């Protein structure tokens, strides 16, 4: 803030007023929602669902190929 000139400082005050007005939600709701969301998507996460990693494009499927 020390490097700002007056017009910049006025803009900073306007911005802070706008940011203050944001409707914050209780973290007991938002963080709970996040945990629930992650849990719901985990089955689609190849790193956490070994079934999905079975179709690994970087691992050869069988030991031999028929030429």
């Amino acid at each position, binding site marked *: *803030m020390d490097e700002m000139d007056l017009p910049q*400082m006025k803009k900073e005050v306007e*911005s802070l007023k706008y940011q203050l007005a944001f409707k914050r*939600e209780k*973290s007991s709701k938002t963080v*709970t929602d996040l945990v629930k969301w992650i849990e719901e998507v985990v089955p689609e996460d190849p790193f956490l669902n070994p079934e999905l990693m079975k179709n690994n494009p970087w691992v050869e499927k069988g030991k031999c190929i028929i030429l």
Partner: protein
Amino acid sequence: MGEMEQMKKEADGLKTQIEAARKAVADTTMSAASAAVAPAPRVQLKTRRTLKGHLAKIYAMHWATDSRLMVSASQDGKLLIWDSHSGNKINAVPLKSSWVMTCSYAPSGNLVASGGLDNMCTVYNLKTPVVKTVKELDAHTGYLACCRFLSDSEILTASGDTTCALWDIESGKQKTVFLNHVGDCMCLSLSPDMNTFISGACDSLAKLWDVRDGTCKQTFQGHTSDVNAISFFHNGNTVITGSDDCTCKMFDLRADQEVISYQDAQLNAGVTSLALSVSGRLMFAGYDDFNCNIWDTLKGEKVGVLSGHDNRVSCTGVPPDGMCVCTGSWDSFLKIWN
């Protein structure tokens, strides 16, 4: 009291009010909210491919939306387009300026972009018989730290001149300039719905912006040094940052605050890059100490490490299908792990 003094006092007052508003909604912790969740298992990944081809430090990489192709940028003065499955190089794009710091793949797969100490973002068409420069986006007065396409016609940039900008590629002009950071902008991440984006800067802050009207909607503090890496969760409500202060932090957009920090007493290296698995449960963070640590984002614990690079891990990326993680390093190699 001079007008400047008055303004400063008003600004300080507003910041205090914002902190109070945050405290008022902080009625739980991540620890409490995730208590019933089992810890993530230990993650041990193998290097599936080592992509060799660059002749100098790699600074950036970005996956194409097909989860197969990717672009990497090195200070050897080239962008390389790789087929990650075969490990083959599909294209080599020579750069006018070798001091590249960022690269990006357009969602369509038609274009790539790069930029760095030349202060410009150059857009290339990969689909012409020979790769052609589409536009040089020239208006920033500082280095280009990060760029991300919204489409073939619009791109977002983050610059060392402390601004971010939304460009119309065809006209080569800035449509919107995002002014509010007081330090070099180092990174940006677009929200899944593309209406907002988040930026990280050397002022140790992360800021959420409205893409269309340019307003700074929210500011996230907590880091004590440059924010080098940033990523949205796919839910659009959560963001993770990585910093030179050796920590990563999760910020909840709806509660407007930090909810958990990822740090370790033995970890003394800055975070250079980060990428999330598709659920966001795992975070891959690249550090100056040549490693990439894997974190359980809900429990705040390290669950794995990717060791194999002989120099700083400068970039990490998980493709849209989530099937692997790619790390790029100053040792000039890219590695694919899963």
